[in-house]
């Protein structure tokens, strides 16, 4: 029983990281109508930048987390303005979902991988943080790095919920997600809001990267695996739904952990996609996907 609980707890923590990346993917999808295939590389960049700040500049872990989020948020806004915006414009609207933008996303992911390769090299770098003694609950011990993940992720989710529900900016973001023309006519600076949404999504991805750093190594290719899991999480929850992204992320994390613990660790990455396929067969719109999706 203890074994089961510890698997669930660890799966839940890792699931929170998936959820953060999936939240970013969903935010971008609902706000900009872009399925962002370079989001895994944003996460990878976050991990590298966080590590560099932590190792080279001697910042505390929390400060590295925040600075990495800020830096990657700015990089994200820049990428969106310089590369994605002209493409969506050419599509005719303020934003448009299409093949061009998907291929551009793949291209961007390769570019970012190679940029990271040039800066940080091919080796997997360790992210050594001394968090102190693990927490103990009776028989159960939980390393502090997992506690950090869960607390940071929960705090971020509460923050997002607060911003979206209680502030004017959040209201504007929901309006932009629902209908850009109407948002424009309400006096909202839609292009600015879109940049803001993209930057926030990238900041979330970067934080996820810094959080996973101390558990795994930081390496150039870490982005592709997480992207697929984040997509699985987003689809399981219902693509574009924010609560869905969280529930989907946690579901994928726990099932992966249970599968690795009880069946075989070698196929750890397979379980998430088995869940994905089953959900798509049984409930194609995802757990939280409603038929007429109300994004606002």
């Amino acid at each position, binding site marked *: 029983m203890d074994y089961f609980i510890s698997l669930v707890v660890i799966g839940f923590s890792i699931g929170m990281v998936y959820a953060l990346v999936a939240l970013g993917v969903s935010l971008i999808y609902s706000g900009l109508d872009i399925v962002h295939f370079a989001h895994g590389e944003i996460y990878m960049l976050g991990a590298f930048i966080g590590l560099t700040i932590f190792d080279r500049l001697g910042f505390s872990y929390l400060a590295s987390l925040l600075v990495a989020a800020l830096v990657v948020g700015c990089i994200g806004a820049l990428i969106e303005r310089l590369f994605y915006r002209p493409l969506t414009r050419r599509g005719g609207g303020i934003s448009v979902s299409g093949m061009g933008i998907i291929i551009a996303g793949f291209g961007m992911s390769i570019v970012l991988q190679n940029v990271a390769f040039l800066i940080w090299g091919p080796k997997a770098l360790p992210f050594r943080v001394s968090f102190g003694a693990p927490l103990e609950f009776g028989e159960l011990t939980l390393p502090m790095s997992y506690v950090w993940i869960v607390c940071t992720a929960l705090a971020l989710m509460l923050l997002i919920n607060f911003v979206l529900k209680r502030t004017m900016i959040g*209201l504007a973001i*929901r*309006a932009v997600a629902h*209908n850009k023309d*109407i948002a424009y006519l*309400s*006096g*909202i600076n839609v292009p600015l809001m879109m940049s803001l949404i993209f930057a926030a999504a990238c900041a979330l991805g970067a934080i996820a990267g810094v959080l996973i750093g101390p558990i795994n190594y930081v390496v150039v290719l870490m982005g592709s695996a997480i992207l697929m899991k984040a997509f699985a999480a987003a689809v399981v929850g219902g693509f574009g739904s924010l609560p869905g992204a969280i529930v989907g992320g946690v579901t994928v994390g726990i099932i992966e952990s249970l599968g690795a613990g009880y069946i075989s660790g070698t196929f750890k990455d397979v379980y998430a996609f088995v869940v994905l396929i089953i959900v798509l067969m049984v409930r194609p719109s995802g757990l939280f996907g409603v038929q007429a999706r109300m994004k606002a």
Partner: protein
Amino acid sequence: MLDIQDLIGGYGNVRILNGATLSVKRGQIAALLGGNGTGKSTLLKASSGLIKSWSGSITFDGERIDGLRPDIIVRKGLVQVTQGKDAFPGMTVEENLRLGAFTIRNAPLIADALERVYGYFPVLKDKRRQPAGTLSGGQLQMVCIGRGLMSSPKMIMLDEPSAALAPQVVLDIFRTIYRITRDGMTVLLVEQNVRMALLLAEYGYVIKDGIIHIQGKAQDLIYDDNVRLSYLGGTMANREATLNPPQAPSDR
């Protein structure tokens, strides 16, 4: 207040507006009438900045506004009120209204505007915590008009406020629009419901093929056969006839 001169524009390569000219005076209700596909929505979108016109000019309150971003035009005091179906269904009534005041940072001003809107539409006050998705069509239209009023604009442009509503509801809405104008608002009313619009408006324009086809005082247009004709299939030829009428009847 609003002056549109020889406006040409469209979507992509498709030309919709062919040199439309109209003007709305301060404190006036003007009606822009036309069937589907005549260019009235395009004209509206060009004025509110959602699409860029190709040539011609749009002047609002003495300033050129063509080519500006929609949110800037809202800040200048010209607001396009959308159709009721364009309320945000997942947001509460009050959230919808507050969104209209996005350009305003001053909390007391927003509170005043909210009270004013609830004064025009008491029903919305009772339902202010409900999601807009649960309202009736008429109430949704009220939400959209209210949202347009929240930034305390100088002029509003209403996009078919009567669309898909029961006649009794339309009457209610139009009565309120009249009250809003009496309180000093300038209104451009874009409508397919010709009779209702002309009863409310002081001046009317009929648009067809992207050009103003007929214009005149509303009470004259109501009895004008050409207005009816242009809906049933008038041509450019009878536009010439209307612009240079052989002899205006004087027995009205």
